């Protein structure tokens, strides 16, 4: 089963939930944790994983052979991102705008364009105890997060329990990370910010047709509106984590919740069972 852990709003405790859930399950089944928050990957801080494989990820960027080029301008015409421009006797390439779609090299009538990989980040794989850990790290100044996320997801093994830590927000990197999961767990906090961003995240999961459930973190710090919203929308609240100084301290030191306070292990195992039930119920419904 693939469970993605998202939130809309940042800083609600996604990584806390992802790491504790992975650790709770790792005693019983094969577990993979994929950190797809490639702009700011943090799960490794909690898992103290040893990395034993590191793979650079490249985006194919056009390269023009000026000896073949006739400056016809076809490449600039077909590029949807204005990443290539032809001025008198010169072709200018703007790699930071290129999405690597390959149209220019394929359509160049003189076959003057080849592609050259530009490194946009790395995918690292290692382990933390029994957990197979994979993370993507986007290079500074790069924008192609979805491309990198795809590469991280290639490591998914269908026989494992797969947990995906997703970046905050609702746009393309989130969609790429959440897409094709069996269930999406949305971590929120009981404030108007949490509610606003939760409702957006719920819409993402609906658009993708993925069943979802909610974890409320820092319960009782704010108001009741998140709970009310979940009831109205018929979204199950699967776990509540209280606002608690000890939990905040553990987090600040990079200690997973179920290691700092082992009594939480059972709550995470129950959380997993509830997710399983929700997934089978939604499959029946389909």
């Amino acid at each position, binding site marked *: 089963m693939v469970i993605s852990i998202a*939130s809309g*709003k940042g800083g609600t405790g996604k990584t806390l939930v992802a790491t504790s859930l992975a650790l709770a399950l790792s005693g019983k089944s094969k577990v993979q944790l994929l950190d797809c928050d490639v702009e700011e990957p*943090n799960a490794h801080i909690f898992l103290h994983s040893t990395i034993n494989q590191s793979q650079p990820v490249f985006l194919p960027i056009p390269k023009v052979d000026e000896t073949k080029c006739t400056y016809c301008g076809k490449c600039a015409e077909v590029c949807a991102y204005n990443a290539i421009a032809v001025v008198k006797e010169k072709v200018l390439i703007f790699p930071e705008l290129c999405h690597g779609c390959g149209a220019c090299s394929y359509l160049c009538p003189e076959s003057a364009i080849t592609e050259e990989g530009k490194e946009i980040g790395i995918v690292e794989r290692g382990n933390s105890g029994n957990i197979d850990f994979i993370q993507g790290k986007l290079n500074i100044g790069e924008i192609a997060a979805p491309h990198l996320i795809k590469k991280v997801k290639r490591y998914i093994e269908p026989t494992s329990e797969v947990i995906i830590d997703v970046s905050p927000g609702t746009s*393309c990197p989130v969609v790429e990370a959440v897409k094709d999961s069996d269930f999406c767990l949305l971590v929120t906090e009981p404030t108007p910010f949490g509610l606003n961003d939760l409702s957006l995240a719920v819409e993402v999961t609906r658009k993708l047709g993925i069943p979802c459930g909610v974890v409320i973190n820092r319960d009782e710090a704010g108001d009741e509106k998140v709970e009310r919203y979940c009831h109205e929308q018929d979204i199950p609240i699967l776990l509540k984590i209280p606002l608690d100084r000890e939990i905040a301290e553990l987090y600040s030191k990079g200690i997973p919740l179920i290691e700092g306070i082992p009594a939480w292990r059972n709550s995470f195992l129950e959380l997993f069972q509830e997710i399983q039930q929700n997934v089978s119920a939604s499959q029946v419904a389909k």
Partner: protein
Amino acid sequence: MKEIVVLSGKGGTGKTSIVASFAALAQSKVLADCDVDAADLYLLLQPQVQEEKEFWSGQVAFIDKEKCIECEICQDICRFGAIENYVVDPISCEGCSFCYQVCPVDAITMRESMVGHWFISDTSYGALVHARLGIAEENSGKLVALVRQNAKLIAEKQNLDYIISDGPPGIGCPVISSLSGASLALLVTEPTLSGIHDLERVIAVCRHFGIPTLVCINKYDINEENTHQIENYCYKEGIEVAAKIPFDNVVTEAIVHGLPVVEYSEGKLTQEIRSLWQYIACALE
């Protein structure tokens, strides 16, 4: 006119509460919410929308079943895996037009889509430019650029001193778009190991684009050892720590009441945010 972008790398460090407080403290400013996928600033500033505009961007390919001869060329060349059984999945399509260019029978058209809205609003603290990106849409970078552009126009027209913008989390495309050419980046972090790790990455982005940077440590008393570590790190990097703000649940209470925290309470925290704003104003002179 100076533009201040408040960023954090990691989400949830208190960026938006600080921006809303600056809105209440600064004179002569326009506000911009550049966190277009999960915009929260409006919840604290209670804007009255004056102008609402559509954001059209991002083309999506569409295959005309009638014309398609099922040659599969488009499916083979699409690098984003967006075409299956002669149907384009609009969520995966990156709008590159490659398929449109190669289809031998012109069965494919590229369609513009409306992917969001942006607004110019009045608040009791001045004008606010904000936006809402459609769910699961791309091009948040372009929408951020549009929000900034319009905030700048307002600042120029009204001869305002500051543009204060609430930036997106992360270090990717919308962050880069919110940052380039700004006068100052204020990085709000928290003393957690995740916060420190993310701060280092966002500092690297600011440096990459040559933006002067200040750091604010929020909830500094949650872990004073980590706070020290951040201070040392900043010192080594030659970046000033402009404020250390204590943890106080009054921030959450203010959010629940829909107010900037400096308007809600007069405590220690409010004083710290006031002096942070003074610090920034001086740094920009």
